[in-house]
């Protein structure tokens, strides 16, 4: 990261310089989880499967899609999530600009009381770290394999299967409490 300014910490430095994230929800029962598609190809296939998995657990979902992964989410989307949802899953970042922008989106929503998690590929785990440190935010991420653009739909769905529980654990302190409906995954 190139540095444009160096400031000094005005706090007592007894806590991390990163602002803590919102605590996970105690339960997802009766809550709605926003599934925010960052607007990049293939992300919707991952999110489609994730939505099925969440709904199978009785968790309501709301679908949102950014017009582009190269900018932060439009204010209208942010406001809609704040007004209608209780947590957010942002997916699926597999490049620099989308990782940066999605981390800002995560930060913005967290600041408005919406706990969330950013799903990123392992190649951009360090970019996520740099970005969250730059904005001073102890944001949460779940890291999935990289790359994703050449994967089959089945492979992307298997990532959703594989990481669903970890994603839920970032937004809910008791993610296993939800029951899986018969006949569903």
């Amino acid at each position, binding site marked *: 990261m190139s540095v444009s300014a160096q400031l000094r910490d005005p706090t*007592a430095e007894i806590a991390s310089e990163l602002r803590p994230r919102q605590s996970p929800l105690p339960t997802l029962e009766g809550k709605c989880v926003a599934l925010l598609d960052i607007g990049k190809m293939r992300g919707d296939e991952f999110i489609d499967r994730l939505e099925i998995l969440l709904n199978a657990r009785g968790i309501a979902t709301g679908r949102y899609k950014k017009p582009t992964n190269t900018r932060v989410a439009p204010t209208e989307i942010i406001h809609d999530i704040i007004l209608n949802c209780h947590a957010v899953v942002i997916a699926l970042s597999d490049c620099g600009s989308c990782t940066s922008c999605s981390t800002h989106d995560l930060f913005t929503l967290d600041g408005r009381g919406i706990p969330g998690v950013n799903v990123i590929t392992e190649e951009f785990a360090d970019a996520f770290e740099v970005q969250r440190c730059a904005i001073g935010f102890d944001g949460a991420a779940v890291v999935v394999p990289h790359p994703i653009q050449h994967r089959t739909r089945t492979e992307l769905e298997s990532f959703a299967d594989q990481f669903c529980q970890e994603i839920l654990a970032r937004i809910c302190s008791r993610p296993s409490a939800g029951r899986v409906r018969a006949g569903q995954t």
Partner: protein
Amino acid sequence: MLLSSRTPADGLTVFVKKECPTCRLIQPVIRDLAKRTNSIIVFAQDDVSAVEGLAVIDDTSLEQSFRQDIEAVPTIIRFANGREVDRTFGWNRDEWQRVTGLADLGRGLPHMQPGCGSKSREPGVFEHLVARYGDPGLASRKIEIGEWDDPIEAGFERGWSDGLPLVPPTDERILRMLGGTARKPDEIVGRVPPNLAPCTVEKVAINAVMAGCKPEYLPVVLAALEAALEPIATMHGLLCTTCSGSPILILNGPIARAIGMNSGINALGQGNRANATIGRALQLIIRNVGGGRPGELSRSTLGGPHKYTFCFAEDESDAEWTPLSVARGLTRGTNAITLFQGDGIQAFIDQRSRSAPELARSLAMSLLAVGHPKLCEFTNAMLVLSPEHYGIFRDAGWDRVRIEVELHKAMVRPGKDLIQGAQGVGEGISPSRADELVNKFWPEGLLIVRAGGKAGLFSAICGGWTGGRFRDQSQPVTKEIRL
């Protein structure tokens, strides 16, 4: 021989700036030295054409001027074995001949002529140079802001802000702020609630920078913090309370005028930098060092705009008036700050009273409403007396003591009217006091301050925090300001 090195080497080094008349005067001397010695370096602080006919090294960054601690130009330094062995500044033939070891310098020039100040010592520049090239000596954690990020937004993002933009606390600003006090940056002022975290002078300076203070305000901010940290000020409870109380700061003494504080028109309002930022600095210290953030441990049910900042100076223009700080035990003319634990203002309107007794009765009616009309000896209160209202008392020969006595007298009521349930209202004093005559405030619980514009029969009442009901445990604090 002219060395091309950018750093001084053994031999002579001269610092000049083109805009300096003395530097221009001695151009022939420098050219003469270049001919007669094989080791001279010339640095120019503003323009490399400062000495015509010579290759002068650009020091517009002022790095070498800073590193060689140049205070005036021209300065000539002799280095030997990598160390400075002699220097002089300005033009003085004898001095230059001593430093250079050469005779017959500057024939035809006056014997001496003072130089100019070094650009590296201009106001605000030196701190930049310390931050850039030196050791700022600051202990606080560095926070690096990304190339494309906005330092003002960074203040919000890190949770440092009270909701308004902060001045980014860069090293140069912090160093300038620390210049406002002789106290050492690592001195611990006290432990700030609610986390009871130790707070150094440096942390105070950082938060004062962010609040927008000038360095000359820093002693006042330090005194305000010291007042807040006196146990009897109960800052911990005042911060965490569900009530709306917050520190209200009142300045007395010549420093109020010296730093331009407002005690006149709109004294309790916006528009004056010192009033606005000193109070804000204290709030930011409590937020950032103490960890007192609203919604976390700062739990005021409603809060109030006074929790951003509430600081003003008392009008001491009337020599017959006893200033608040004097009434509270300090000598007249002492710089002092008083911290009152109070709420925002309740306006007092009386445009009809013509006599002092009439006005006292009128003020008492409004003061009785503080907290709740039926609660007594439950909070303190501060009355900010405007000039026109004060004039009625002054014309009657009433001084501070007389006004206080008359106000207290006018607020005594039968307990039976105030006990819980009386007048169909559950709130009130203990039923056990039904047969007493009850005072509204403790005798020391009413603070009177003079402030405001000359026109307007309007004063102000600031209700006190409910912690004041514990008479011996929570009281206003007055501290002398150490300059």
